[in-house]
Structures are given as C-alpha cells and as structure tokens.
C-alpha cells in the first residue's frame, strides 16, 4: 500500500506503562485524518512513532508504504512535522529558522530560498521575515512552525495539537491556512483535544482514550451514531444530579450522562430531547444545542474531553 499510513496492532510501552495499546489505523492519501482524545490518550505517542522519532514497541507501521523500523530517514524526508511545542531557534530570525531547517533536508540553496518565500507568503509572515522569535505572538510562532514544516515540500503533514494555547482569533487563522493546504491535496494527520478542530478540519477521525481506539468514522457519522442530533444540557450542582438524572430517564427514550456540573440528555432512535426543555422543574440553566464530538466522547467513555 503506497501513500498514507497503515498501522496494525501498534503498541508503545514506556517501561510498564502502556501508552498505545494495540491500535489499527488507516490514513488515506489526500485526506485530513484526526486523532481526538484527552491528554494521556496516547495521541502524541502515536504521532511520534509515525514521525519515526520514537521506536515502536510492537506491531506494524508503514508510512507512505515504508516500514518505520528500517526506512526512517526516507519517511522523515517526506513528512512535514508540526510539533506540540514550538521548538524554534530563538537566536535566529524567522527567515533564518526556515533556512536552517531547509538545510537539514540537504536541499540546494536556491530551492531553500524559493520555499522560504512561498512559506512566508502562505502563512502571512512575509513582513516578519527579519523578526526575532521572541518578537512574535503565539499565533505567529505557530504559523512559522507550519511554514517550517513545509520546507521539504512534504506529501504528508503531521500536526500535534496545532492550535493548543492559541487565542480564538489566532486559531481561526491557523485553521484557515490548514484548510488551504488541505485544498491543495496535502494529506494531513492531526491530533487534538478540541472537538471543533476535529469537526472543522478532519474528513475522518479516531477517538482515543487510554491508549485505545473507542470509535472511528467521519465527524458526522460519529455524532449521528453516538449522540444523535440534539443534546439537552442542564447545569446543576453535582448533589442535585442523581434525582434529576432519574427523573429525566423516566420521561422517555433518553440516555442521560452526568459530568462535572452538567447533566446531558441524548435522544435514542431519532427522538430529540429538545421537548424536555420546558418540562424541567427547578431553578436550573437549560440549553438545547446540536450534538458534537465531545458528546460522542462522553457517551463512549463517561469522561469529558477537556479533563
């Protein structure tokens, strides 16, 4: 199989701790694939194995048809990597950072120069080329890391939590740039714990928890299958949850979950919990909204993505 990523029974152990517990993964060429899960789910460990910076403990992993165990250098030459921390060179300018990175790939000088221009233009950093790294905002640094990852004209981009720590505006800019790249046919693999990011960017995704895959499919498929169309949220003190949950369950064909200070009501078999909105007695804050991937995660694991 060429192109994309193929993993079978992939395992990563750190001593006795199992970070990735035998997962199967197929990423097709040209798609944007997501790994969604809370911190500690095993997303970063999985990504690091794919990027060949972490040796696999067991299982099979092919990237672009090449085995990570034996063809790491070739794989790395084809991947673009956007890591979780911005490991930029603070002593170098924006442009110098890109040049240094281009050299690691052994690219000729003129190609490096051309790609620097393309990257700066694409990520809207052309007027910052001579800036030092500490002069950049968080969003700009992130965009620079993305520009850097494109220096080797990769066939696949791997992004580990691309917008964590960014303010909403910076996040939108990054998403927009990533959608542009996606539109150009670049295969993308990203990890995230933000459901909007997964829903916004990914064609397909897997949901991970504690090193295992708990669900896979497109965002729409997952939501329809596990959370329905609408969700009713009732904000109530944890002490009030038990009677409230029992009451809600009695009122119809509903699934009720409680997490933190909120009770969630999902419909079964196409029934919508929206009608309950007017029926709830008590001084609670009630909201009806569309179901999303966070609800899917909650339904499948009993935990919130945000933990």
């Amino acid at each position, binding site marked *: 199989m060429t192109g994309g990523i193929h993993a079978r029974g992939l395992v990563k152990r750190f001593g006795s701790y199992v970070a990735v517990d035998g997962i199967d993964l197929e990423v097709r060429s040209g798609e944007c694939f997501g790994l969604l899960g809370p911190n500690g789910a095993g997303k970063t460990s999985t990504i690091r194995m794919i990027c060949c910076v972490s040796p696999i403990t067991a299982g099979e992993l092919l990237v672009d048809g090449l085995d990570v165990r034996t063809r790491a*250098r070739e794989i790395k030459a084809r991947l673009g990597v956007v890591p979780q921390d911005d490991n930029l060179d603070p002593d170098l300018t924006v442009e110098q950072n890109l040049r240094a990175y281009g050299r*690691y*790939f052994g690219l000729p000088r003129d190609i490096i120069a051309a790609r620097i221009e393309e990257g700066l233009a694409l990520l809207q950093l052309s007027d910052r080329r001579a800036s030092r790294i500490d002069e950049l905002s968080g969003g700009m640094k992130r965009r620079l890391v993305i520009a850097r990852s494109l220096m080797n004209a990769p066939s696949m981009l791997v992004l580990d939590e691309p917008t964590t720590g960014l303010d909403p505006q910076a996040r939108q800019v990054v998403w927009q740039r990533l959608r542009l790249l996606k539109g150009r046919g670049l295969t993308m693999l990203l990890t995230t714990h933000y459901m909007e990011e997964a829903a916004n960017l990914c064609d397909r995704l897997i949901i991970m928890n504690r090193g295992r895959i708990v669900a896979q499919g497109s965002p729409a498929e997952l939501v329809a299958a596990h959370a329905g169309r609408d969700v009713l949220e009732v904000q109530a003190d944890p002490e009030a949850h038990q009677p409230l949950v029992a009451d809600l369950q009695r009122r119809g064909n509903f699934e009720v979950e409680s997490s933190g200070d909120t009770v969630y009501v999902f419909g079964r078999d196409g029934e919508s919990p929206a009608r309950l909105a007017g029926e709830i007695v008590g001084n609670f804050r009630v909201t009806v909204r569309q179901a999303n991937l966070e609800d899917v995660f909650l339904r499948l694991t009993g935990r919130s993505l945000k933990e």
Partner: protein
Amino acid sequence: MAVRVAFGPVIVLPSLRFWGVWQRHVDVARSRFLSQAVMPAVEPLITFLVLGFGLGRFVELEGGGDYVKFIAPGMVAVFPMWQAVFACTWEAWFRMENQRTYHAIIATPLGPEDVAAGEIAWGTTHSLLSAVYVMAMAVAFGAVDSPLAVLVLPVAILNGVMLSALSLWYTASVSSSNALGYFFTIGALPMFWLGNVFFPASSLPQALQTLGWFVPTTHTVAIYRGLFTGDLAWSQLGDLAWLAAVGAFCFLMATRALRRRLLV
C-alpha cells in the same frame, strides 16, 4: 521519562548532512559574535602576561629556559579545551533541554548521530579557532623554536574532537543541568592544572602523575612540546594514538548517549 529502550546497533555513523547542524550553529554565532569572542580573546592574553611574564620572573626551571616558553605549548592545548568543553556542555544542554533544538532536528532526515557529529564539529571549530589564536600569541612572544610547530593545527583538530566528544557524552548522559558542574570540577579543572601545562608534571607525586596519564590534554601537551622545540620522540606517536583512540571512543559513546536520550 528516563527509559531503557533498545536503540539499535552499537555503532551508528552520521550522514554527511550533519553539516546542516554545524551551519545552524554558525548562523547563531554570527548574531552573537562580539559578545562570544571576548572571553577566548582575553583569557589567554592575560594568562601569558600575568603568569608568563609576571610570575615567570620568579620561576627557575630545571635546565634553565624561559617560563613563557615552558607554558606556551600547554596554553595552546588548554584554552581550546575550555572552548570545546563550554560548547558541548552548557551550550549543548541549553539547546537540548531548553530550546528543544535537537528534537526539532531529529524530526528531519537527520538523526541523533548527525546532531552529535554537528555538535562535535562545532566544539572543534571553537577549539581550533582558539588554538590558532593562542598559537599566534605564542609565536608573537617568541615561544616557538621550530617550524614543526605548524603541525600543531592538525593535532588541534584531533584535540578538539576528543574534548568535544567527551563533553557531549557527559552532557547527553546526565539528567539535570546541576550535574554539568561536576564535569568542570572533576574533568576540566584537572586538565587545566595536572596536564604538565604550568609546571612540570614530574614534580608531582607519583600518584598524581599516573592520574595525569588519563587526563586527555596531558597527551596533547606532550605532542605540542615536541613540535614547539623540534625535539620529537617516539613517545609522542603514542600520545597521538591515545588521542585518536580516545577521541573515536568518545565520539561513539556521545552518539550512543544522544540516541538513547532522544529516541524514547
């Protein structure tokens, strides 16, 4: 997390692309050149003046001879030693742990073995520049008697590689920056003082002389003494072999330590 993971074959050689790492260091150094050049420029000069001409007036060497001429070969060995050590301990640590530069590099086709080669090449560059500078000073002070002294430069490269590799091996192996200090007190300082630089090693008690044999710069100094005066002996070939063997060993161990640390 510190982990014992099998990391592959014992000997992993770098690719030629490691120069990319060296070039990056040059770019950084260019932006900091002036501030970085002060110490290596001033220290040897002051030492020559203060010890060579100052203290030297009170020193009587067995067999006569000028104290400046006595310390010159050692100076050409040890000041570059400091350069190599600084580059591959504090600076390397900072790049490795604080800036995460090494992690960025290994996401490209370069591996930890290339990072190691690049760091060692850089330490050697620092060291060689210092050697050239101190040599120039030695010549200026009339301390060099033989044209063979020009051979100091290739030996200086070997000296630089050995010391950079040794320092990097240590840096890649320790778990906190606090431990880097031990390298200076237990490693670098003895090199500075016990290596037959400022006084003849033969004046030390036998135990310390034996210890001196294990000090890397002792062998470099021995070779330089021969080259400066033109009095070469077969023993200096032995010193050269020592440097080459220990240098190669440290290079491999530094690579190994970096692979173990980065490929987790």
